[in-house]
């Protein structure tokens, strides 16, 4: 039972401070160089995918607070992404003629999404598991349907056409939509967005880690483990659950705002149930409750469909001499297959927390 469960790699890092620093520096260099490597070798479409991977990491980390830590199954999470995205779209586009600065909109998006998180959370406090999933699913759909229909009698969301011409993100008077000259290096737009997204993703990782190892984080997990016992320990489960909904939602709101600025276009289509399911898959497949696992899940599930999309054609060409199956159709098939295989062989996720790994091992033993 007391077998070493932490990978040796991390033990080495923990014991040796200079190794840890070296590893951090190496990781930093890789992350900094990544867009240039990908941009020059794979092209801009992969850079866009990389940027999206970072947005999905933020979403997955947000959902992880609700599902992974507090154990509240949420199938409508993408609604908070939508709230953040539409807030940005409404406050910085020709639609209303407003062009507020990004440093105002992104925090406002986080706050508004947090409020929506509480609004969703409040009626579901007594629900758990399947019932909670159904109510949250309904909430996600309601938000999408509202976005679809709030174009009459007053045109707020512009309905299914969505809002276009959204301002690109500007930081300190510099727009990220055009290449930036930085100390003699030309940083293309997609690279600049990458660095901004990376910075915010790292901030969210930092906040999540701090929360996980805090009084609040322990209370979340306690509720997941046994709500009645948590109450008996003096945890105000109502407030702590609402806090989980609000925190998770606010991360989604940040990601949504960035998404709107990055795409310059939002429409209700981007916030379908499928997206909620996708983010949930990232959390579960990566390793529920474990931050590195959730990040891995976010990266993999963003990349895999694209790899299948780009790879399925050439591979068929090489094997059969022609493209037999439409790569677009094939990619979701392969993707589904990959999910099933992972869940069969790694039921706790690809990179489970040490606790969960112990849990599964303990049950097997």
């Amino acid at each position, binding site marked *: 039972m007391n077998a070493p469960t932490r990978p040796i790699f991390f033990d080495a890092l923990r014991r040796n401070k200079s190794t840890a620093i070296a590893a951090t520096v190496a990781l930093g260099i890789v992350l900094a160089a990544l867009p240039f490597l990908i941009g020059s070798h794979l092209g801009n479409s992969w850079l866009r995918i990389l940027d999206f991977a970072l947005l999905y990491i933020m979403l997955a980390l947000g959902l992880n607070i609700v599902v992974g830590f507090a154990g509240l199954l949420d199938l409508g999470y993408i609604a908070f992404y939508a709230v953040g995205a539409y807030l940005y779209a409404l406050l910085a586009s020709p639609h209303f003629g407003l062009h507020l600065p990004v440093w105002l909109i992104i925090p406002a998006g986080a706050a508004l999404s947090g409020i929506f998180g509480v609004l969703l959370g409040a009626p579901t406090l007594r629900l758990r598991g399947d019932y909670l999933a159904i109510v949250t699913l309904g909430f996600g759909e309601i938000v999408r349907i509202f976005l679809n229909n709030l174009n009459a009698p007053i045109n707020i969301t512009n309905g299914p056409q969505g809002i276009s011409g959204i301002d690109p993100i500007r930081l300190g008077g510099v727009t990220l939509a055009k290449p930036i000259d930085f100390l003699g290096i030309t940083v293309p737009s997609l690279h600049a967005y990458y660095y901004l997204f990376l910075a915010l993703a790292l901030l969210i990782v930092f906040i999540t880690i701090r929360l996980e190892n805090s009084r609040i984080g322990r*209370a979340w997990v306690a509720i997941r483990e046994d709500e009645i016992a948590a109450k008996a*320990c003096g945890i105000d489960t109502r407030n702590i659950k609402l806090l989980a909904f609000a925190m998770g939602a606010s991360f989604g709101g940040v990601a949504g705002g960035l998404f709107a600025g990055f795409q310059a276009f939002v429409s209700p289509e981007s916030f379908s149930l499928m997206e909620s399911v996708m983010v949930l898959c990232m959390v579960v497949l990566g390793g529920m409750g474990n931050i590195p696992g959730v990040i891995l899940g976010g990266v993999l599930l963003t990349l895999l469909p694209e790899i299948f999309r780009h790879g399925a054609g050439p591979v068929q060409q090489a094997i059969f001499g022609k493209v037999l199956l439409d790569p677009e159709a094939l990619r979701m098939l392969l993707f589904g297959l990959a999910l099933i295989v992972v869940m069969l062989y790694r039921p706790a996720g690809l990179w489970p927390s040490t606790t969960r790994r112990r849990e599964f091992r303990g049950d097997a033993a």
Partner: protein
Amino acid sequence: MSIRPLLEARAIAKYFGGVKALHDVSLTIAEGEIYGLIGPNGAGKTTFFNVLTGLYRPDGGELIFAGDKLQASAPHKAARRGIARTFQNIRLFGNMSAMENVMVGRHVRTRAGVLGAVLHNRKTVAEEAAIRRRAEELLHYVDIADRADDLAKHLSYGDQRRLEIARALATDPKLLALDEPAAGMNGAETGELRLLIEGIRKDGVTVLLIEHDVKLVMGLCDHVAVLDYGQKICEDVPAVVQKDPRVIEAYLGGELA
């Protein structure tokens, strides 16, 4: 008696449909004593616990705790007032370590919020260190310090019972309510439990004990109340309770007669 009452239950009633789970139950627990609550299965002992700790709202009567009315509407408020409990079927946070379980118990006596957690300001860091220190102390106190890093669900049955007590003590209770702590324990384990409960009382915590082990209750408690079909049929010192014909009839049967 000059001893102050810590808990006064006045005519507590709790009905489930037509079932009178508790009916007109009044009892007084003095500060610093070990108070036993016994009765046959289904007599309403655990229901009383649930009313006391705020899990159930009583249908009648009131609870006076430490001089003030106990607004038994929410369990976390009861915990804040100083009532801690364990559960008949152990309810630990299975996938948290023993240490973390006890640390959760400190929740109600600590304050750090999201901002403190994220910023790690000096106050939060100090508080977190204090939580850890207290949790370590309590694990030592119940004698399972060597299992601190094990998942709660992987502890032995007896250790899980001890861990539950440590977690309850972490809330700094005035009244510790133990729901059948000796259930499923062998003689040696029960003996150790008895020492533990006596130690807890010596440290100034009043103990309310539901227990089936008659020998343990009679040997340990200062006062005993007997419930039968939701009503209190007797309340006195163990020696008197043991001889009460109503008790013998309802609960002890021929065992001690």
